[in-house]
């Protein structure tokens, strides 16, 4: 390149340098984006391959169906959690909200039919989410404390609602939703894909999504540019509640019988898939696709360990090691790319 330099004017040189640096930055961005979206993909593929290779019956149609349905129910709750974490919040109440939505849905299904039951369940979820949202925006309670409190309150409410007894769902039609399939794909999975697609679109392509990123990525900037931060927060919590509601309805359909103690500890699982999926707890961009893949990953791990008949003590160890392993790959990958980017000459 040195030969040509002599013939170039200063301005051209400046422009050329700018182009080069722009090109460099563009490439770096591409890689970063690729990485952000593919972080969980590598562990996912590894677990998938290992599962197929060594776990008996892993790919049997019944197991595949089970994994897809379980992943779907978790993923749907994960979407809402992704959104809340993206706006720098957290929702610890999803498990309790899901239980309440599922139990109310079950009893309404028994009294007013499956359709109304499902709808009421989702609305209950959304209502509980709105409660969280109002506590955060209007009462200015930090999300962690607000949802820690409602986690307890909602659990109490569902126990009071059920009196601690299980509710058996009579409607075969309602119970069939979880086991039915559309074009060979389990219905809950189809729902999860559609919901995920919708959520992805809202986050990536819609004004709401830009505002979510702004509120989570730089709250000061969001306030200063005149974004209605409270509205964004309220919506995020509301959607998280509604997702828990949808998950609750599907869970009720899957289990056919629900009681006040279902879905305990769901919050930890939901947050885990969100973080595994590449959404940072620090807020900013939410990675819906990552959450979806991580839900599949977790479903595969859980089912694989059971299929291998790993005793429960060892399951704890295995799950722990797998989580660490999954993210250490991610860390190593990131470090490698960073080295690559820095070592790049132009």
């Amino acid at each position: 390149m040195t030969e040509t330099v002599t013939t170039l004017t200063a301005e051209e040189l400046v422009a050329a340098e700018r182009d080069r640096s722009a090109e460099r930055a563009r490439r770096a961005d591409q890689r970063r984006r690729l990485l952000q979206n593919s972080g969980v993909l590598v562990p996912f593929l590894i677990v998938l391959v290992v599962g197929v290779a060594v776990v008996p019956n892993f790919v049997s149609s019944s197991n595949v169906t089970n994994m897809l349905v379980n992943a779907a129910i978790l993923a749907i709750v994960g979407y809402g959690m992704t959104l809340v974490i993206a706006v720098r919040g957290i929702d610890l109440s999803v498990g309790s909200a899901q239980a309440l939505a599922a139990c109310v849905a079950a009893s309404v299904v028994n009294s007013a039919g499956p359709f109304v039951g499902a709808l009421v369940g989702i609305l209950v979820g959304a209502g509980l989410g709105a409660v969280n949202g109002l506590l955060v925006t209007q009462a200015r309670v930090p999300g962690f404390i607000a949802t820690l409190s409602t986690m307890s309150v909602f659990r109490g409410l569902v126990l009071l609602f059920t009196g601690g007894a299980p509710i058996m769902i009579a409607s075969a039609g309602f119970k069939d939703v979880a086991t039915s399939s559309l074009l060979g794909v389990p219905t809950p999975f189809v729902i999860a894909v559609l919901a995920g697609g919708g959520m992805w679109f809202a986050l990536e392509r819609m004004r709401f999504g830009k505002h979510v990123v702004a509120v989570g990525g730089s709250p000061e900037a969001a306030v200063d540019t005149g974004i209605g931060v409270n509205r964004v927060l309220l919506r995020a919590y509301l959607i998280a509640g509604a997702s828990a509601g949808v998950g609750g309805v599907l869970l009720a359909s899957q289990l056919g019988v629900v009681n006040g103690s279902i879905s305990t500890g769901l919050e930890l699982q939901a947050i885990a898939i969100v973080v595994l999926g590449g959404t940072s707890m620090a807020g900013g961009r939410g990675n819906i696709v990552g959450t979806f893949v991580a839900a599949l990953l977790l479903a595969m791990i859980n089912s694989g360990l059971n299929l291998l008949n790993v005793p429960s003590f060892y399951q704890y160890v295995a799950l722990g090691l797998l989580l660490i392993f999954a993210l250490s790959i991610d860390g190593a990958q990131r470090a490698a790319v960073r080295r690559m980017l820095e070592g790049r000459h132009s």
Partner: protein
Amino acid sequence: MTAVLQVEDVVQEYPGVRALKGVSLDIHAGQVLGLVGENGAGKSTLIRVLGGIEQPVRGSVTLKGVPQRFRSSADSQAAGISVVSQEFRQVPQLSVADNIFLGHELTTGGVVQRGRTRTRSTELLEQLGMDLEADRPVSSLTVGDRQMVEIARALSRTFDVLIMDEPTAALNGAEITRLHAIVRRLAQQGKAIVYVSHHLEEIFAICDDVAVLRDGELVARQPTSELDEPRLVEHMLGRKPTTYEHVSTGEGEATDVRLAVRELQVPGVAEPFSLDVRRGEVLGLAGLVGSGRTELTRALFGDLVGLGGVVEVDGKAVRLRSSREAVRHGIFMLSEDRKSEGILPHLDVTENAMVSRDRRSLPWSRRVLPLRRDESAEFARLRDEMRIRVPHGRQLIGNLSGGNQQKVLLGRALLSGCSVLLLNEPTRGVDVGAKVDIYQLVKQLADRGVAVVVSSSDAPELAAIADRCVVYFAGRQVAELRGRDVTEENIVGASVGQTAQEGSHD
């Protein structure tokens, strides 16, 4: 001619500080009003009030004859005020285009029109002479580019009043010239413009009127034509300015080399670097954005790991794989990105200044633990020396004005006890009075034997303090100016590549 914007008796207070003490001001259509004052005088506070980001304790704002009560920035924008704020209000995860249209997205039914957003952004940036790709995330931009995005964002709104808070702090000469042209054009179109800068020549170049804030009060409001620079400075400081006379340590070739860089290959930069800095010498690094200056200082601080070459400190070869290692070898660096790479927002100003303090020279009693009394005294000294405007040492650094934050960070560097000090844009956002103080401090440091490297895009600054100046262009050294040759013209000339041809004959 009636005023577009009238500010009446605005008072703003923070815990322990009365930032505005009843300021009244008006500005007319087609007028460019320069707003100047020392760091912490209240300029940005006034602008935050006008932008609706803060509600004043008292006072009123009238826009086109209509009294306004802004409850959020959305209100202010809707009324026709557009602001370029001093601290960037950008969302790093979003693209350039999305940042420009943040808060007033171009949408149909809630869906962002990506094509239009991109083309409109590109247009706005082109108008500013930038060919930034609109899709790049802001996190990948240099500070200068982000400054341009901030300006483009303000221009993307419809407004009657444009307020620019130090818009040129991170811009280079050519970019500043282009911005001035735009400001003039907007004024001709009848917009009212408020322009804040610490570069007084800018004020004289484009402002019709100047308003001077001192300590929260308006102390002068005059046509620019009635003022000259010394008088303006006197208004700002309330005293005669001290001047800085640079005495070059010049031909101190006899003194030993403290920092020697040989063929240092820096990631992302075309050619390896080589340079020497002597004990007591102030070396300037000049060059446009992309010239590799930042990369060089980062590499010397172990923040970018070099791919080859040798760095010696006091004749000893050192390995620099982390900033920690660099510090241990007596090197310290101040980043140009104050907000994301400088301040520790949850820590108070004293701690911010003391974090990197060299404790080796302290007596044992003050070495093991950071003693409050000792550190407070040290900070008080720093505060007086550098005229840091802060009510007390326990104030959080985020609550300081931009220039005062910069001074605290500079204090951090001074206390690091290093033998090689790398300063990036050390006086960005610092007022004229304090600049002189800082130059003197840098000089004192050099006199104590520190090898100082100052990387700056402010040519007059380098001309003022550098004993020697190396100019880079596109990752290559194109000139080395010494002694009397270190002048503004020479630096600017070399920077834009006039000497590029010479440098590439081989």
